[in-house]
């Protein structure tokens, strides 16, 4: 039955499925894992940094991107789709700042991205965006936020979540280990993100990239090499 209703995005199957949207969610699982943690005074995004080909410029391979000074996003899925969504979101952030003279709230830009994704599930001749995104940041009121969007255009706020390959395993780890104690301090939250990624990384913890935003401080991206017991920072670099 699936094969008769899964070719066109605008066609529901008799049992109410939009198969193209569900297949887009499979495309998300082909991307490497990204994890997001919302602490008390910090938000953390962690990804496994992909090993690049020998002749490829490492700087141009990015899984975490800044949408504005106070908001950043990690994605999993089709690289080209992510580039398009990120560009639209960045333009919207600046447009909002020029129009209302206030930076966007994290919820606003998440809603914008989710609405964009939903439009592509309802247009003929187009396909959904094959990415899920984790969007983190601090609003003006100083409250940390973490949102997740998926190809269907839904968005929800989370305390901690993971997307991409083996996301389910990471989420189960977070459900067991995300406690008030675990996020009591900034370092504990960072350690939790690294430990969650270590559950599923392929490279044995050699290449974990973290994006950290602390309250009233700019975004910081650092590269980590982690082992099962502890972790040490390898080098820091500012996100351009």
């Amino acid at each position, binding site marked *: 039955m699936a094969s008769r209703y899964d*070719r*066109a*995005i*605008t*066609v529901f199957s008799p049992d109410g499925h939009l198969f193209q949207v569900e297949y887009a*969610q*499979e*495309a998300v*699982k*082909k*991307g*490497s894992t990204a994890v997001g943690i919302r602490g008390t005074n910090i938000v953390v995004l962690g990804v496994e940094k*992909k*090993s*690049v*080909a020998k002749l490829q410029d490492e700087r141009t*391979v990015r*899984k975490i991107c800044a949408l504005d000074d106070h908001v950043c996003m990690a*994605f*999993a*899925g*089709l*690289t*080209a789709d*992510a580039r398009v969504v990120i560009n639209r979101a960045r333009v919207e952030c600046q447009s909002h700042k020029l129009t209302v003279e206030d930076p966007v709230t994290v919820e606003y830009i998440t809603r914008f991205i989710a609405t964009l994704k939903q439009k592509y599930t309802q247009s*003929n*001749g187009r*396909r959904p965006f094959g990415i899920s995104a984790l969007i983190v940041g601090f609003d003006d009121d100083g409250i940390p936020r973490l949102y997740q969007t998926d190809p269907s255009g839904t968005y929800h706020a989370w305390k901690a979540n993971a997307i991409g*390959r*083996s996301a*389910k*395993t990471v989420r189960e780890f977070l459900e067991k280990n995300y406690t008030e104690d675990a996020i009591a301090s900034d370092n504990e939250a960072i350690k939790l993100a690294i430990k969650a990624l270590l559950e*599923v990384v*392929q*490279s*044995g913890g050699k290449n974990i990239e973290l994006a950290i935003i602390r309250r009233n401080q700019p975004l910081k991206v650092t590269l980590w090499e982690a082992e099962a017991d502890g972790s040490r920072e390898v080098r820091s670099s500012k996100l351009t």
Partner: protein
Amino acid sequence: MAATFFGEVVKAPCRAGTEDEEEEEEGRRETPEDREVRQQLARKREVRLLRRQTKTSLEVSLLEKYPCSKFIIAIGNNAVAFLSSFVMNSGVWEEVGCAKLWNEWCRTADTTHLSSTEAFCGFYHLKSNPSVFGSCPRKNMQITILTCRHVTDYKTLESTGSLPSPFLKALKTQNFKDPACCPLLEQPNIVHDLPAAVLSYCQVWKIPAILYLCYTDVMKLDLMTVEAFKPILSTRSLKGLVKNIPQSTEILKKLMTTNEIQSNIYT
């Protein structure tokens, strides 16, 4: 076939009418050259079993030299990675031969000089216990097959998002009396390709055989998928063959890094 404005693929009606009868007849007649080309292609596509060093045919000596009690087949890169890092890492395994074949999808045109890395299948036997391995049906032989399948092939009432992937399912022949280390594959799921062929053969010839099928999200080489095969190490088929699990895990990690082929399409 044609695509509509909405992106559906539909069968387009053909306006060419029926084909010319004369053209059909010509197509059916086979010239001697066609026959020659077809025979050459069939010879090229033959599957050959070769001994390791001498490259002579393996089949006859296999029957005499290597009677066996346990035969383990791994199909697919995750199953092969599991076998090579966990089972073949413990003890000394000797390569006794390989199977080579060629078809139109192979990248090399040269069929006579395929290196061992291009072999379709390698045969190994355990030096310390030569009864583990074999290729012919004998009494008291037990066959274990390991393979992977994408989780979207798994038919279930639950949505695939809620399945604990990767997970293991088993399917065994009537003569296999030992319990499986995981739940059996339920209907209406079916097994395809080579594992199905081997299992059917074993069922017909009353050989005890069990297939362990890992349903996974990731079909390329993946640590989580390979580790999903671990419960099999406690079964009677593989017990005693695996000595050092932590060391095997390290070898597996090394295999991951050397085999990492990064695609730019997905990040």
